């Protein structure tokens, strides 16, 4: 028999009956043609074979069942080879006239089918071919009863396959494993080259394949930019549309660059199915085919479906993992927390107690407590409170109380308890949650603080000075009895107000600045201000305050004591007035004496040098008084006195060098030293070192701390001057120095007339330091 498979022109043959696939018409018997025509339209998987080597044709249902294309004109040996042992013999027998039934193995996932093979008889009743009909056994919801069920069967088989896939993916809890399992099932199912699941990053622009399945070719694992697939694919995927390409080489939507990329991966045809989440590309499932392939709608739909399921499985596994870690966290919290966390039923019976709670309650065996009525474990006098809190919680509200109760081992503890409802599915409280916090230490601290505050107040109220305390924000927390009497405001009026409330408005800004700065630095402060008396007048007070610190060092506020110093202040003001008057009088008196002298001298035609010497002495005395005036007649610094005394004679810089530490002289001593220095300088200017250029004076002093007291040692040394002979007659100046000064100071004064110049040494006791 001629081979029907080989006539390429057969499909174009004019005599060929319409509607038959190419390569089928050929030289076959009319009976064969009729059977083929019938099979072509049948929804049941059928294969018809004829001729010596049983070349044949399988219908679409047959191809779908085998999940592969069956080229018309393929010999039986090629079609049936892998489907079961001895099948070819059975089919051969059928074609010879003996009908046969056999089992066909469609593959591990497709199960089996029943093959019914019978001869096709020609008009003469002789066998001229074979008709094979397959009935799948393991797919769908049972054996398919008749041929009209085929589409439903196909749908059922897809459903079953997907359900099976769902089971497999659902059992995995790792995203990579899920991706791998999905690819490994879908790839062989579609008979493709490569299949993989790519996850997108947060932008949806970078796709990462961690695992894929291939039919032995290179993997596509790695990161891929969505744009690299070309604008058409990228846009489709972003929109959530699957991109199916039957042949990359002929598809105008695939650009030259992308075509090269396809070639590199060995891909001619492919489908990419996107999964969107929140309108952003979340993942893509792709299948690659090495040869051109037309993708049916059903296939594309399946790929989309698998993509969605794979993504859903990953999300479910993530949620499950998060849930597990939440559970672990909850367990840890219950374990670690020192709060006693209990679950009660609505009757108030104990059903659960946290591990940490058992620890603080000193429970060794919770089973002994389980089921007990919770209020019963509280002392009798606390019970009403506990039951009231339970009643609140049962009504859907929060119950709260603080009570003392002993732990199981009898340790007394103070508890802060919150009872709250746990709402069930019906929206009503189903169980109660009771959390007890041990506040014994806090309570003790509060109590001891209250006690010490009480002691402090008792003491402060009997103190003779005004006392106030403030909190950390500067608000008054207490004023003692004397303060209340003085200001005429009651404690209740003072509480919570600014501690500066009763201060004279003029003194407030300054005082507030001091108090605020001290509070910020947690430092003591002392300041004076006018405080309002009860009668509205103001009294000068001195306020001395320091921070109050808790045992743990926390800043609580300040405590201040206020002393009425208006008497002292008045005395000071009076003294200041007197000193001013004294200054005025002294200076005016000196001016009057000077005026008298000058006018006497003017009338008496006295030698001008006498008048000048007198005036200079008077002015020197006045200058010394200036220093004392500035210091309110309390004394003067020796360096100030010395500088003023020699200033009129200094002439130029460095002619009189002063050197010595700060020494405080009482007024009497200051005046005596000033006058003596004036005489020495006058003398030097007339006869000594200051009478010629180049002459110099060193004026220096030290203080010696001796066992019998402090002594001032002052020296006046003239250098580079002319030799000064001792005066023949002791004048006023030398008498003032040697007798007057020595007597005034109660010390020794020595003047030597050396060839190098005059030298004067003073050695005198100083009053004790604090007497100054």
């Amino acid at each position, binding site marked *: 028999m001629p081979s029907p498979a080989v006539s390429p022109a057969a499909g174009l043959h004019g005599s060929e009956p319409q509607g038959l696939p190419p390569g089928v018409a050929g030289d076959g018997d009319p009976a064969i043609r009729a059977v083929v025509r019938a099979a072509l339209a049948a929804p049941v998987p059928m294969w018809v074979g004829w001729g010596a080597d049983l070349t044949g044709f399988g219908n679409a249902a047959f191809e779908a069942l085998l999940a592969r294309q069956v080229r018309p004109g393929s010999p039986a040996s090629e079609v049936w080879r892998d489907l079961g042992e001895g099948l070819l013999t059975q089919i051969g027998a059928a074609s010879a006239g003996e009908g046969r039934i056999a089992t066909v193995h469609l593959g591990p996932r497709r199960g089996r089918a029943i093959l019914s093979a019978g001869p096709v008889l020609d008009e003469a009743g002789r066998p001229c071919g074979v008709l094979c009909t397959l009935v799948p056994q393991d797919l769908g919801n049972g054996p398919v009863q008749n041929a009209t069920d085929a589409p439903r069967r196909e749908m059922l088989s897809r459903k079953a396959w997907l359900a099976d896939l769902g089971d497999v993916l659902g059992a995995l809890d790792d995203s990579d494993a899920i991706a791998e399992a999905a690819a490994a099932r879908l790839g062989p199912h579609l008979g493709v080259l490569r299949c993989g699941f790519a996850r997108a990053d947060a932008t949806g622009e970078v796709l990462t394949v961690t695992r894929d399945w291939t039919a032995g070719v290179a993997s596509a694992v790695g990161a891929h930019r969505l744009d690299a697939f070309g604008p058409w694919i990228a846009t489709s995927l972003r929109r959530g549309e699957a991109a199916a390409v039957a042949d990359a080489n002929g598809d105008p939507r695939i650009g030259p660059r992308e075509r090269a990329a396809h070639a590199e991966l060995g891909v001619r045809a492919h489908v990419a199915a996107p999964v969107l989440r929140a309108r952003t590309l979340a993942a893509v499932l792709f299948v690659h085919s090495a040869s051109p392939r037309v993708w049916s709608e059903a296939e594309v739909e399946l790929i989309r479906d698998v993509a969605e399921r794979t993504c859903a499985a990953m999300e479910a596994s993530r949620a499950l993992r998060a849930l597990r870690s939440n559970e672990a966290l909850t367990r840890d919290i219950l374990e670690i927390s020192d709060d006693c966390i209990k679950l009660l039923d609505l009757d108030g019976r104990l059903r659960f107690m946290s591990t940490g709670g058992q620890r603080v309650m000193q429970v060794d065996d919770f089973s002994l407590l389980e089921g007990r009525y919770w209020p019963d474990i509280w002392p009798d006098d606390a019970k009403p409170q506990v039951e009231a809190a339970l009643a609140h919680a049962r009504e859907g509200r929060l119950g709260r109380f603080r009570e003392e109760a002993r732990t199981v081992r009898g340790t007394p503890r103070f508890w802060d308890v919150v009872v709250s409802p746990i709402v069930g599915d019906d929206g009503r409280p189903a169980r109660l949650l009771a959390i007890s916090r041990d506040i014994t230490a806090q309570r003790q601290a509060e109590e001891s603080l209250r006690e010490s505050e009480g002691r402090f107040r008792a003491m402060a109220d009997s103190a003779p000075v005004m006392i106030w305390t403030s909190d950390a924000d500067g608000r008054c927390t207490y004023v003692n009895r004397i303060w209340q009497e003085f200001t005429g405001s009651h404690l209740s009026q003072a509480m919570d107000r600014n501690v500066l409330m009763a201060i004279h408005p003029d003194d407030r800004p300054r005082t507030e600045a001091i108090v605020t700065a001290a509070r910020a630095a947690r430092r003591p402060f002392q300041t004076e201000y006018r405080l309002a008396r009860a009668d509205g007048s103001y009294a000068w007070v001195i306020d001395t305050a320091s921070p109050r610190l808790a045992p743990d060092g926390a800043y609580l506020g300040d405590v201040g004591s206020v002393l009425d110093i208006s008497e002292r202040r008045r005395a000071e003001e009076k003294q200041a007035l007197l000193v001013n008057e004294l200054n*005025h009088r002294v*200076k*005016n008196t000196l*001016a009057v*004496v000077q005026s008298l002298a000058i006018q006497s001298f003017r009338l008496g035609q006295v030698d001008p040098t006498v008048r000048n010497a007198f005036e200079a002495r008077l002015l020197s005395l006045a200058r010394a008084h200036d220093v004392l005036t500035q210091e309110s007649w309390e004394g003067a610094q020796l360096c100030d006195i010395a500088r003023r005394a020699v200033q009129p004679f200094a002439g130029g810089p460095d002619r009189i060098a002063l050197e010595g530490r700060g020494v405080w002289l009482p007024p009497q001593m200051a005046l005596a030293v000033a006058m003596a220095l004036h005489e020495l300088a006058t003398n030097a200017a007339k006869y000594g070192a200051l009478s010629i250029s180049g002459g110099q004076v060193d004026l220096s002093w030290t203080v010696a701390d001796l066992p019998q007291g402090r002594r001032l040692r002052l020296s006046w040394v003239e250098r580079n001057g002319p030799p000064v002979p001792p005066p023949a007659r002791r004048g006023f100046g030398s008498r003032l120095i040697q007798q007057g000064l020595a007597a005034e100071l109660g010390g020794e004064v020595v003047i030597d007339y050396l060839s190098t110049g005059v030298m004067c040494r003073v050695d005198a006791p100083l009053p004790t330091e604090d007497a100054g």
Partner: protein
Amino acid sequence: MTEEGPAGANGGFAGKRILVVEDEMIVAMLIEDILTDMGATVIGPAARVSRAIELLGAESVDAALLDVNLAGEMTTPVAEELRRRGIPFAFATGYGAAGVPAGFAGQPLLQKPFQERDLGQVMAQVLAA
């Protein structure tokens, strides 16, 4: 009566009318003598604030020398009146610069007690202003 002293400072006082406000009689006399010697005409001396204000209203005055404190009465009103009239003046005080009334810091100052030449210098400075 001519006396020795910095003659250069004394030259320009001829014909100048200087108001002297000073409550210490002896001091006032001395000031009067010195200024007269220098060729000036002394208005006053006034020992009270009211008298000084009176004189300012009645006499023409080129310059003034004011004691800050007249037996407890501050001469600030006189200083203000002088300033209002645009008449230059100096303070005389035993207190130093710290004793000058507020608002008049920088005014020429004669420190008491003073020497003749100090008075001449301060008044020359005032009249030059």
